[in-house]
């Protein structure tokens, strides 16, 4: 484990999580959630869990984002919080 990269990515993960919850647009929230999942995937590969990393990259960052975007397009982008 390369610890400077680990610390940097962990900080970015928290920033992306807070951003996904604070942004006032659901499409923006789903894209920020996709970036959150992708940084989680980087974190797994830094910690040596390569199998978890590529599952997260395909399922977490790929399929989840597609599901979120599809759901937002079938409902509305409006949000108050």
């Amino acid at each position, binding site marked *: *484990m390369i610890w400077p990269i*680990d*610390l940097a990515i*962990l*900080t970015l*993960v*928290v920033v992306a*999580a*807070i951003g*996904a*919850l604070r942004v006032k647009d*659901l499409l923006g*929230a*789903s894209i920020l*959630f996709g970036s*959150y*999942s992708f940084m*989680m995937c980087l*974190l*797994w590969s830094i*910690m*040596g*869990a*390569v*199998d*978890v990393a590529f*599952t*997260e990259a395909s*399922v*977490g960052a790929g*399929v*989840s984002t597609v*599901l*979120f975007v*599809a*759901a*937002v397009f*079938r*409902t*509305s982008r*409006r*949000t*108050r*919080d």
Partner: protein
Amino acid sequence: MTDLISMVVAKYNYWIYITLMMIGLYAIIAKNNLVKKIVGMNIFQTAIILFYVSIGVKKGATIPILEHGHGPDAHHVVHAVDYINPLPHVLMLTAIVVGVATLGVALALAIRVYNNYNTLEEDEILAQIREK
């Protein structure tokens, strides 16, 4: 002060896991929009996965694939100290798949709720239910 900083940096993965878990819990409880609640649920799940993967990390170990496992010079003496513990990885592989399944069900339910009430905000849905 330096004690505090070294304590935080030494267990940084675990501090961030607690932080992410609390961010997700806050979103599930306090957010008003259904999609934001689902995002919070997913953040909670990945926080738990982060905790389990952090357990398996060892200093100076490599990824859990056997070296010299094949070929003419194959030998089968495995030192567990040289490899990262793969057991939490396998458990969390299942957790990721379960997570995306729950995400799909939750979003399908949110779409059904939107078709009925024409809004995703929880307080507006509750107000419409009370009017009926």
